[in-house]
């Protein structure tokens, strides 16, 4: 995206994230739903339950790429992409667009994506533990 386009960008944030009661175990305002991401671009500014942009605080390509991949695996999703709008700001933007006949909203899609990554981590973690034991037995 060119500089001129970026300067046109108007980001209106809704800070609906409640302060967690569990004693700061999770960051507040970690994730936000963006409204009117780009008012000059009709397609990308489409915001409803099935076309959303999220802003995640303090995350980078470590999460962004694997999340994008996982969300694209969802058959309801037409498009998923992420960007880090500015390298010196700690934000990751995630865009999800579902098909018109989608059975899930963007939030459900993202929820499922995150859950799937956690499951994948569990599987890989278990496999690693098994592999360590197997290697030890062979030694």
């Amino acid at each position, binding site marked *: 995206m060119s500089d001129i386009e970026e300067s046109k960008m108007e980001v209106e944030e*809704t*800070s*609906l*994230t*409640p*302060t*967690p*009661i569990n004693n*700061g175990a*999770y*960051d507040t305002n*970690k*994730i*936000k*739903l963006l409204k009117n991401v780009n008012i000059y671009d009709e397609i990308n500014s489409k915001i409803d339950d099935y076309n959303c942009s999220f802003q*995640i605080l303090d*995350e*980078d*390509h*470590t*999460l962004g*790429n*694997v*999340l*994008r*991949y996982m969300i694209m695996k969802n*058959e*309801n*999703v*037409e498009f998923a992409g992420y960007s880090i709008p500015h390298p010196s700001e700690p934000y990751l933007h995630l865009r999800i667009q579902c*098909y*018109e*006949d*989608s059975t899930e909203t963007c*939030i459900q899609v*993202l*929820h499922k994506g*995150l*859950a799937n*990554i*956690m499951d*994948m*981590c*569990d*599987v*890989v*973690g278990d*496999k*690693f*533990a*098994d*592999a*360590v034991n*197997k*290697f*030890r037995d062979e030694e």
Partner: protein
Amino acid sequence: MSSSLNSHLIKKVLDPEIKFKEATSEYVDFTLSNVDLSLANSLRRVMISEIPTLAIDSVEVEKNTTVLADEFLAHRLGLIPLESYDIDKLRYNRECTCDNYCNRCSVTLILNVIATEDSSKSVYSRDLTIVQNDHIKNLKLGNPAVSNDVPEGILICKLRKGQELTVKCIAKKGISKEHAKWDSAAAIEFEYDPWNKLNHTDYWYETDAKVEWPIGKNHRDEIEPNEDDKFDYQAEPTVFYIGVESAKSLPANQIVIRGIDMLRQKVDGIYQELENMDRGLDLEEDLNNNINNGLGMDIGYQDENLGEEGDAYGMPNFAEQDIGYNEASNNNDDYGEANFSDDDEGDAAW
């Protein structure tokens, strides 16, 4: 529409697989198969920069008559790897309730050396002694990490006869995203597609890349392609050759285990926050519906009161409180007009 578009792309899904080639406490080498490049790369990135370890973070210099400057020594001390196996038992200093530092968020090490002999005296990381307390008793935490072949550890500085070095070091928990001294891995090897069948790599060459580039240690694990093979544009990387060399603060296999765990924790944090956000959105919707039914003023008013009361009783209803303020700041038409007269009265009273 959606499923029919993607159906031809769905391949048989294989379970992730891990096979070890080599494993010592300092180095593990394994292949990770049947996962996507994005997950393997996330794991690599986490292992490089987000595994918490312990490192000296501030140094109180009591006496330094060596030839090295205080800050020079402080920097050297910071880079010494400290045993961090039980780092989970320690808090981050910024998250601790103490004023400066305490036993729950730091480990103190003392270095006290005087050279009395004519020959020069070497100060090694082994000379750092940990200040014991109840919190770190019996924990694998804070001792300078040494390898078997170099039992004295890292050379910090050398003293001439009569020179003295007395410092108090405060070691804190951190991750290498903040500073490389918290790095748990000295090196991470990461390779896929050694024959470059996917053309992800563009080799530089003088005359012939094939002749000039050496065969790596992972090449023989995969079949060498023929010259006249067609390029498979649908192929994806499936096998990843990963090697982890420990920097001694953690055993090499722990770096991988913790890497996977940290990645999971990261995702879990967002998962929880997303649930909170979603709950907030639902409440906002209910509130909007109520406003449209003519109840807006009452609810807005109640919410403001709830916020204060909630704080006082220590049982805040955060979601509602947030929305209450949000509605007010958004200057919702119904709400704003309905409260206009009230606001004026309020100002007059002030």
